[in-house]
C-alpha cells in the first residue's frame, strides 16, 4: 500500500519542474449535479459545481484552495475523496485511481485519504463518546485488539492535545476548538498521507483558529502529511499554504506558489479577491484601493459562454465572451486561465474554440 505508485510518481516528476513526487493528480474533474423537473423528473440541466478542474498536489505540501461561497471549493474536496460520484475526470491519489475505483478498492484506499470537516459540531455523532468516535476508523480498517486500540486512541488524543481523561465524554461537552481536535484525531487514526481540510477553521473563533492551524502545521511536520486546505480566509491560507489555487464558479482561475500569487496576482479575479483583504496598518488601509466587482456570480447551472468571469471582469476583452480561456503555465509554476496572458491570442483562441 505504502510503496504503490512510487514508480509512476517518479516518472511523472521527471519532466516536471518540481522534483517532489505528485501525491494527488487531478485531471479534468467534473462534478455536475442534475436538475430534474416535472412529474417524470426529466433531466433538464446540470449545476456545474466543478467544471473541468486540473491540478496536482505534491507530497508534503499544503495546497490552499480559495474562492467565494458557492464556487465549488468544498465540492472539489469531497469529489477528490469520492464522497460524491464524480461526473467525469481522473483523480489519482498515491498513484491509484479514485474516481472510478470499485467499492472494495475504494474502501482499502480510504486509509490513505481522510477529511477534516468544517463544522466540528455536525461532523461528530452526538451519541458516541470521544473514544468511540476516534476508534471508528480503527474498527473499520484494522484488526487491533481492544487494548491496542485503546493505546492508539490515547496516542492520538495526545497528538492532538486532548486530555486522555476526556475519552468517555460526548462531543457536546467540548468547545469548538476541542471538537475540531477530535475530528483531526479521527482523521489521523489510520496514518493517512493526504488530508482534505474543508474549511476546518471557519466555524471557530479567531484565537482558536490559530491553535488549530498551528496544530495542523505541527502534525504535517511530524507525520509528513499532505493537505488540501480549503478556506475563504485569505490571510490564513497565506500563512499555511505552500501553493494557492483560486476557484471561480467551478473553474480554476489561478494556481501559483504562495508568494507569487499574493505579490503578483495575474487573474483579474484574484486581484479583486486579494484587494478585499483588509490591512492591519491604518495608513495602508486608507490608501488601499479596492477593486469592487459589479453584478452577481452567474448561476452555475447556466455559466457564461466564454470565460466564466467575463460578466464581472474589469479587464474584459471581446474574446472573453466567446472563447473559454485555457488554464496554462504563463510563468514558471504559475498557472492562470485568462486571455490577457495568451501568448498569441487570436491564433490560440481559434484552436480552443473549435
Amino acid at each position: 500500500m505504502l510503496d504503490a505508485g512510487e514508480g509512476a510518481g517518479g516518472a511523472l516528476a521527471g519532466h516536471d519542474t518540481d522534483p517532489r513526487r505528485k501525491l494527488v493528480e487531478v485531471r479534468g474533474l467534473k462534478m455536475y449535479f442534475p436538475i430534474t423537473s416535472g412529474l417524470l423528473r426529466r433531466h433538464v440541466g446540470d449545476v456545474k459545481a466543478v467544471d473541468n478542474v486540473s491540478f496536482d498536489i505534491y507530497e508534503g505540501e499544503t495546497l490552499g484552495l480559495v474562492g467565494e461561497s458557492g464556487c465549488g471549493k468544498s465540492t472539489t474536496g469531497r469529489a477528490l475523496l469520492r464522497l460524491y460520484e464524480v461526473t467525469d475526470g481522473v483523480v489519482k491519489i498515491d498513484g491509484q485511481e479514485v474516481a472510478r475505483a470499485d467499492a472494495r478498492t475504494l474502501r482499502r484506499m480510504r486509509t490513505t485519504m481522510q477529511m477534516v470537516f468544517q463544522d466540528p459540531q455536525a461532523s461528530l455523532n452526538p451519541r458516541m463518546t470521544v473514544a468511540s468516535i476516534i476508534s471508528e476508523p480503527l474498527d473499520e480498517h484494522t484488526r487491533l485488539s481492544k487494548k491496542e486500540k485503546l493505546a492508539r486512541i490515547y496516542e492520538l488524543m495526545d497528538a492532538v492535545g486532548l486530555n486522555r481523561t476526556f475519552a468517555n465524554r460526548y462531543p457536546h461537552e467540548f468547545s469548538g476548538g476541542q471538537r475540531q481536535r477530535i475530528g483531526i484525531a479521527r482523521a489521523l487514526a489510520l496514518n493517512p498521507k493526504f488530508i482534505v481540510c474543508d474549511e476546518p477553521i471557519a466555524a471557530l473563533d479567531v484565537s482558536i483558529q490559530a491553535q488549530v492551524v498551528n496544530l495542523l502545521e505541527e502534525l504535517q511536520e511530524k507525520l509528513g502529511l499532505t493537505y488540501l486546505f480549503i478556506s475563504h480566509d485569505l490571510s490564513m491560507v497565506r500563512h499555511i499554504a505552500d501553493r494557492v489555487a483560486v476557484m471561480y464558479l467551478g473553474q480554476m482561475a489561478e494556481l501559483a506558489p504562495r508568494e507569487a500569487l499574493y505579490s503578483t496576482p495575474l487573474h483579474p479575479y484574484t486581484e479583486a479577491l486579494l484587494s478585499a483583504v483588509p490591512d492591519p496598518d491604518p495608513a495602508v488601509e486608507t490608501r488601499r484601493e479596492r477593486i469592487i466587482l459589479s453584478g452577481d456570480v452567474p448561476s452555475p447551472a447556466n455559466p457564461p459562454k466564454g470565460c466564466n468571469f467575463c460578466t464581472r471582469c474589469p479587464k474584459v476583452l471581446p474574446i472573453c465572451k466567446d472563447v473559454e480561456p485555457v488554464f496554462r503555465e504563463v510563468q514558471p509554476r504559475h498557472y492562470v486561465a485568462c486571455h490577457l496572458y495568451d501568448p498569441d491570442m487570436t491564433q490560440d483562441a481559434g484552436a480552443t474554440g473549435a
Partner: protein
Amino acid sequence: MTDPNERQDPRAVGEGLLAEATLGPDHDPAAEMVQHIAPPRNQWWDVWDQFKTHKGAMFGAAIFVIIFVAVIFGPYVWRVSPSYIDFTAMNGGPSLAHPLGTDPLGRDSLARLMTGGRISIAVGVTAMLISVFLGTLVGVLAGYSKMLDGPLMRLTDLFLALPVLPLLLVMVMLFREALAHLMGLNMGIFTLIVTAIGITSWMHAARIVRGEVLALKEREFVLAARSIGTPPWRMITRHILPNVLSPVMVAATLGIAQAIITESVLSFLGLGFPPDFPTWGRLLYDGIQYMQQSPGLVIWPGLAISLTVLSVNYIGDGLRDALDPRVRGR
C-alpha cells in the same frame, strides 16, 4: 452499540478518576504515562445512571414491575380458579374470600384480573415490538435508500388507507381456525391477534423514522463516516439508528397502550380470545352492563390498563432522555 460483555465495573472507573484527582494538576507527563486511566466504560452505564435520576421513569418502572410480578406470580399465590363459577356469590362486593368482589357468574375478580393481565401485557408488548420493528425497518430503508423510498412509502400509504377494524375482522375470520389448528387454540389466537395488531399499526412509526433518517443522512457525521469507509449496514446501526431512538421510543410506548385497547375491542366483538378467557379488555367490556350494580367490575381492569399504559409511557420518557447524551446530566 457496544458489546455488553466489555462492561466495566463502575467502581474501577471511580477509582481511576480518584487517582487522577489526587495527583493534582501539576503531575509530570512521565507519571501520566504510567498512571492508570479508566478505560472507556460501556455507554449503557451512562444510560442507566441517567435513567436513575429520572424520578417519573423510576416510579413508572416500579409500578410496571409490580404489575408484571403480580400477573406472573399472583395466580400461584392466590390459588382461586378464575373460571370457577359460584352462583352463591354472584355480584359480590369485596370480602375476605373475594378481595375484589365477584362477577355476575360468581367468579373471583382478583383471579380473573391477574390471569387477564398476563394476556393483555403479553399482547401489548409483543404487538408493540412487531409494529416498532416493522415501522423502524420500513422507515430506515425508505429514508436511507432512494430506490426503496417510493415503493415503501406507497405501501405505507396503502396500509394507512385501509380501514383497520374491518381488516382485523377479516383476518381473524380467515385465519383463526387454521392457526388454532396449527398451534392450539389460545396460542393460535394470540399469534393471530398480535400479528394483526402489529401489521396494522406500524405506519406512523415508519413515517416518523423516515423523516428523521432523511434529515440525519445529510448531517456531516454521516459524510465523515462515509469518508472513513463505513459500509451502509454499519452506517445504519452505528450512526442512524441510535439517533432515531427518541421517536421510536415514543411510538413504542404509545403502541403498547394502543395494542391493549385494540385487543379489548376485538374481544368485545367476539373475535379475540374465547368469551370465558379473561383479558383486561374483555373484563372491562363484560363489566360495562353491570357498572351500576358493581362498579368494581369496571374500575379494577380499567385501573390496571391505565396504570400499565401510564407506567410504560414514563419508562419510555426516561429512556428517551437517558439515551440522549445531550440531555444527560441535567
